[in-house]
């Protein structure tokens, strides 16, 4: 694997492979990580305090609407995380990018955790408002499928003795699962569901009061930085662990040769 990064690939792949050099990746990510971690923590905590204590209650839902500041960002990150997993999978399958493999394996568990958080907080919100912890409508079911796709990816990537085969199988599963993303997004428009349609739309103004919108956006930004920071830290660890394995193996072979 390291031999591949040693020979610079021709033209098109070169820009991509600049970041495949583990040393350069560790150097750059080491500088970016603290900034992301501080932004993630700072924005999320500010958003939480704003949402809990300063944002107004909803005229119907009362204070239960404050669950939104956890539920909606984790729902967005569940989908965006899967999108980043899919992008890594394309980089892996088409360009054989070695860092994309490591990143994909680390995105899986984090994405699964955010999806679980989305499902759990949705359940906690649904009980007092709808009157049910869970219903099998198209939105909830498609997000549950997303959770299982994440779990499947986590298991598949780690299921093979040869990590390369695991990465390949995981990338294919991740790309097949992309079909689910538009289904999640548009489920509330295509079919009638118990879950309400989107409040923040690509077209038209958000049907939400500004005093609630600002903390929501802050939390979403904080969650995004937090997600990225956790994935980056895990990928850094994975790069170093791979190097440790490589060094130990080289040493063992040297000992055998002697």
């Amino acid at each position: 694997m390291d031999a591949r990064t040693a020979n610079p690939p021709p033209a098109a792949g070169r820009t991509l492979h600049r970041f495949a050099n583990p040393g350069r990746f560790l150097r750059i990510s080491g500088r970016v990580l603290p900034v992301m971690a501080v932004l993630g923590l700072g924005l999320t905590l500010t958003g939480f305090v704003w949402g809990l204590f300063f944002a107004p209650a909803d005229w119907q839902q009362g204070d239960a609407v404050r669950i939104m500041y956890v539920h909606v960002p984790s729902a967005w990150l569940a989908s965006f995380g899967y999108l980043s997993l899919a992008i890594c999978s394309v980089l892996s399958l088409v360009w054989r990018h070695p860092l994309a493999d490591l990143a994909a394996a680390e995105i899986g568990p984090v994405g699964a955790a955010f999806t679980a958080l989305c499902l759990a907080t949705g359940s906690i919100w649904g009980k007092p408002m709808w009157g049910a912890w869970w219903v099998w409508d198209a939105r909830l079911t498609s997000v549950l499928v997303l959770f299982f796709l994440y779990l499947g990816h986590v298991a598949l990537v780690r299921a093979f003795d040869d990590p390369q085969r695991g990465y390949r199988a995981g990338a294919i599963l991740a790309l097949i699962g992309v079909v689910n993303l538009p289904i999640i997004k548009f489920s509330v428009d295509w079919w009638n569901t118990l879950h309400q349609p989107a409040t923040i739309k690509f077209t038209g103004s958000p049907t939400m009061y500004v005093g609630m919108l600002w903390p929501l956006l802050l939390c979403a930004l904080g969650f995004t930085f937090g997600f990225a920071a956790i994935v980056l830290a895990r990928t850094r660890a994975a790069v170093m662990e791979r190097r440790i394995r490589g060094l130990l193996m080289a040493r063992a072979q040297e000992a055998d040769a002697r």
Partner: protein
Amino acid sequence: MTHLTYIMAAYGLAVLVGTVFSVDAWARMSRARRRLAAIDPRANRG
């Protein structure tokens, strides 16, 4: 505040997930850095 238990449960879960994953990532990173520094012939600055 209405629905206080529900709100606390939701925020509590968020804090729990965030903390567990952050601590785990940080611990994994520093353990890998230590092990690498111990066996890597080249000087490694994580």
